[in-house]
Structure formats: structure tokens, C-alpha cells
């Protein structure tokens, strides 16, 4: 039984990580940019959910209806104003720009919301039910996981069935060829960044009821999202989904069998091991690029 407990809670948490990872991977695939502001965008999502709950009294899961369009617009504008200026720059400039934007977001949040961690307590925050006799399943984590699955399915249908989705995938495969086929790649970049931001903010909002909310919380999630992307293969959306679940399970397992202090170290060691043994990731196509 003790094996099932971390496995199940790991899969549930991993689902939310996967959402953040998919957002980052999509941006990477379409724009070839490592977005170092991704964790801070998650942090913004956490605060959006928190204020929707405390000020407007909207349940964090329902407030997604507001958070998703707001954060999409935010990301879209961010790409139009800042990111597209460096899309042809060396990648270290892109990284530094997103680091700078991340610092601005996290430290503005620090000034505005102070460094006191906030906790979003819903009526069901600590409720759980038991499965298989003695495996306890947290209700908010399960809800988050189900919503994650729903959003991933919608994203999958969007990417595979709509013309915008196909244009996004074409841009991801070959930017120049997509442009030659008449696809507005600049617009696709902005859309990809908007979706990436919306996914990050959603992941943040979904994690908010079970986590503490802090202006610098994004830092931890940024590195997790990177690990997930590299594990799955940079730019691979499917890979990021699988990578998220794996990282969630690894974390839960190392908390149970080792110590929760070391779980992040294990995650980063996996990251380095992937770079050493299989740099293209589980689902990546080209290696060493």
C-alpha cells in the first residue's frame, strides 16, 4: 500500500506540473525561446486565483474562466511588446530578457503583496477520501488533475483540428517553411506565448489551494518546468505531459522513501542525467541542438 500512496498523489501533482511544462514546451517549440519568466507567470496565476477568491468570492476552480483569458491576453501583449524584439537575437539575450521580465513581475508582486506567504483555504482544501482501503486521495488535487486532463484534451483538439492549431504546429516544425506557406509566424509566436502564459497561470491557479502563495514561488516551478521539458524533449508537447507525471511521481516517491528535503535535488539530478544520457529527451527528435 505504501507504494500506491506516493504513486497516486505523485500522478495527481504531476498532472499540474505537466500543464506548466506543456506551456513552456509549446513556447519553446514555436518560438525556440527558453522562457525564464514561466515560473513567475505561474505565480501571477496563483495570485489571480487568490484575489478572485478573497475579493470576488469565486471558487479557485471556477475562477479559471476569468484567469485563462486574462493571462492569455497578458502573454500575448508581453510577446508583442518585448519578446518578439529578440526573436532573432542570440538565445542568451532571449534568456536574459525573460529573466528580466520575471524579476520585474516577482519583485513588483513583492512590493505590492509583501513577502508574507498567503494561503488559499477553501472548504474542501484539506478534505480527502480513501481508496483501496488505506490510500488517501486529496480532493483539491484530484479536482486539479481532472481539470488538467480536460484542458490538455482541449489543447490537443485545438492543435490537431483547427487551422490555427495546425499553423502553430507548422511553425514549430519549420519556421521558414511555415512562413513560405503564408503563415503569419509573428502572430503564431504571440498566440503560442499567450497559450503558454495561460497554461502557466492555470497551473498556478490549480496549485494555489494546496500550496502557499508567495511572490518568489515561481523560482521553484521554473526549474521544475525546465526539467519536465528537457525530460520530455524540448519542444515536445506530448513529452512535457509525460515528463510532468514522471517528475510528480519521482518527487512523491523521494519524499516518502528519502526525505522531502532532498526531493528537489533528486529532480535536478534526473535533469542532469537526462542531459548526459539522452539529451534529446524521451520524445525529442533531434539531439544536441
Amino acid at each position, binding site marked *: 500500500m505504501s507504494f500506491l500512496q506516493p504513486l497516486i498523489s505523485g500522478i495527481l501533482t504531476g498532472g499540474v506540473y505537466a500543464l506548466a511544462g506543456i506551456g513552456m514546451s509549446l513556447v519553446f517549440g514555436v518560438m525556440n525561446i*527558453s522562457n525564464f519568466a514561466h515560473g513567475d507567470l505561474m505565480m501571477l496565476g496563483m495570485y489571480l486565483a487568490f484575489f478572485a477568491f478573497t475579493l470576488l468570492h469565486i471558487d479557485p476552480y471556477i475562477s479559471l474562466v476569468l484567469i485563462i483569458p486574462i493571462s492569455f491576453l497578458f502573454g500575448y501583449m508581453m510577446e508583442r511588446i*518585448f519578446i518578439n*524584439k*529578440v526573436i532573432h*537575437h542570440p*538565445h*542568451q*539575450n532571449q*534568456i*536574459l*530578457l525573460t*529573466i*528580466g*521580465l*520575471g*524579476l*520585474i513581475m516577482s*519583485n*513588483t508582486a*513583492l*512590493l505590492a503583496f509583501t513577502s508574507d506567504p498567503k494561503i488559499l483555504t477553501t472548504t474542501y482544501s484539506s478534505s480527502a477520501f480513501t481508496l483501496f482501503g488505506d490510500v488517501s486521495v486529496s480532493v483539491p488535487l484530484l479536482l486539479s488533475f481532472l481539470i488538467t486532463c480536460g484542458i490538455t484534451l482541449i489543447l490537443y483538439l485545438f492543435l490537431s483540428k483547427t487551422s490555427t492549431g495546425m499553423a502553430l504546429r507548422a511553425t514549430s516544425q519549420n519556421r521558414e517553411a511555415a512562413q513560405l506557406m503564408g503563415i503569419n509566424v509573428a502572430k503564431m509566436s504571440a498566440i503560442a506565448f499567450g497559450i503558454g502564459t495561460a497554461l502557466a497561470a492555470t497551473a498556478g491557479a490549480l496549485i494555489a489551494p494546496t500550496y502557499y502563495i508567495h511572490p518568489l514561488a515561481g*523560482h521553484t516551478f521554473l*526549474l521544475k518546468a*525546465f*526539467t519536465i521539458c*528537457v525530460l520530455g524533449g*524540448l519542444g515536445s508537447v506530448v513529452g512535457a505531459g509525460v515528463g510532468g507525471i514522471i517528475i510528480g511521481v519521482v518527487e512523491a516517491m523521494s519524499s516518502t522513501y528519502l*526525505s522531502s*528535503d*532532498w526531493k*528537489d*535535488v533528486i529532480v*535536478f*539530478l534526473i*535533469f*542532469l542525467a537526462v*542531459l*548526459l544520457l539522452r*539529451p534529446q529527451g524521451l520524445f525529442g527528435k533531434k539531439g*544536441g*541542438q
Partner: protein
Amino acid sequence: MKQIAFLAVLAAVALALPLVIGENPYIIGILISMLMMAALSSAWNILGGYAGQYSFGHAAYFGAGAYTTLILLTLYNLNPLFCIAVGIVVASIIALVTGSIVFRLRGHYFGLASIAVAEVVRLSVLNFNFTGGAQGILLSDVALWDLDLNSKTPFYYGMLLVLVVTLSITAYLRRSKTGYYLQAIREDQDAAASLGINIYFYKNKALLLSAALTSVLGSLYGLYIRFIDTSAVLDLRLSIEIILTAIIGGVGTLWGPVIGALLLVPLAEILRSNLIGDVLIKAGLVSETSGVGLFLKGSLANAHVLLYGIITVLCILYLPKGILGLFRRKK
């Protein structure tokens, strides 16, 4: 000739500065921070600027030096110089592990992996017992020859020495075979490899050199402040400050990191010590008890990281070659 005269004047000013200021600990403290940041950024520049390998994890080498030195001193009370040397060895080992993993890859991977290594080091230090964990390490007393290590002046000259050594190495590298190889790798890795340059070897060489210098600075910092914890010496923020200093001055130039430090460190100090708020309140422009006054006094002290963010964004968008880039003729 003009260059030598300029350098001589600069050296004389740098050497005489503590004598002129006397024992004002505040000013000396700022000068030490400036020298340290200039040296850190110059050391980073060897790898990032000349070899084109942007490390986002240099705090790991700084922390390796600081922690090794302070742990050895508190446990065995060895000669500080020996401790600094052991620090270099530890930092070099971390650098070699990083290099052997990531230099076979290119592009985004080196940046990402350098952060991952730095985080593994930071979290390990935080979780081990012998490193003091979250409490950090407090050094009570240290002695070296007849130096008065309670005064700040020896550390001023120590940091100055490391800065001069780093700049000399950089100046020498620029005109040496290794330096040309590194710049070739930065410009076009494949072309460099096809000319027979062992890119793996030279990248590691640059990383080792950069890491060793960074670790010496970490050791000096630890001896100077006498208290270290992970948030002071191993944080990602430190790595980013190091890069930012180089970017603002001019990456891949000899003097860029120095200029960056001369600008950024005082700027951060003004915000940290709340000089702006004090001046505005004393001038009577803002009332101390008003909302704005309280905000200026209370929160603005934390705003220097926000300012770093804004400067980074503006610099990348409008001044990607740094301040020195402005004076260079466009090729």
C-alpha cells in the same frame, strides 16, 4: 604609451584610495563590493564573453569557495590561504563535472544545465549538516600574518589584487592562442571544430579558469563578511547579478565588467540604503508620515532587484552590446 600612462594613473588611484578615505567603513564597504562585482563579472566574462558560453550558475563556484574556506577554518583553523586553495579545488571539481556533462551539447542546454548544477549545490548545502544548513556558518576569528582582519582595508587590497589578476589574464588571453580559439568557438562552433580546434577542451579550460577565480572571490567574501548562508552566496540572484554587470558594461570586452560594476553597485546601494527616500523627505518634497513616504522608507529598500529587472530588459532591447558597445565603431 597613452594606455600605459592611463593604467598607471588608474593603479595609483586604486592603491591610494583607502589612504584618502581613511577608515570610513561605509565607503570602503561599497568600494569592496564594487571591486568584487567587477572581478566576479570579469571572471564570468572569460567564459561567457570570450567563449560565448553563458553560465547562469556562477554562484555555485562562488559558494564553493566561501563554504570550503569557512568550513575548514571553523573546523580545523588552518591557514586561510590554504583554505582558499582547497576552495579552488572544490570549485574546479564542480566545474569539471558541469563541463563534462554539458559541453557536448550546445545552445539552450548549457544555460539550463548550469542552473541545475548550481541548484543541486545550493540545495545540498542547505540539507547537509556539516554546512550549517539553513543557519549558515558564522566565523568568529581569523588570523593571517600580522594583518588586522577586523579592518576592511586588507580586503580592499585583496579584492583589488584578484581583479587585477583576472583582468591581466583576460588581457593576455585576448592575444593568446587559447583566446583566439575561444573567440572562434563563440563565433562559429562548427567552423572552429572543422579547423581542428578541440572545442570540448578549450571550453572546459575557460570554465575552469573562470570557476577558480570566482571561488577565490567567494573565499575572500566569506573571510570578509564572516557569515555566509545559501541565500547570500549560492542564490540564483547572485549568478544573474554577475551576468547583468557584464551585459551593462559590455560582454566580451576587457573593461566592460568593470564599468558595469562601477555603475550597478552604487545604484543598488543607493536603493538599499534608501538614499532616495531620505533625500526626498529631507528636502520636504514628501512627508515622512504620508503613504508615499512610508512606501519610500519601507519598501523601496527591497526594490533594487526590481530595478535590476528593468535594467536587464532595457539593456537587452536597446543596448545589447553594453555601454562599451556604444563607443565601438559598427563593423
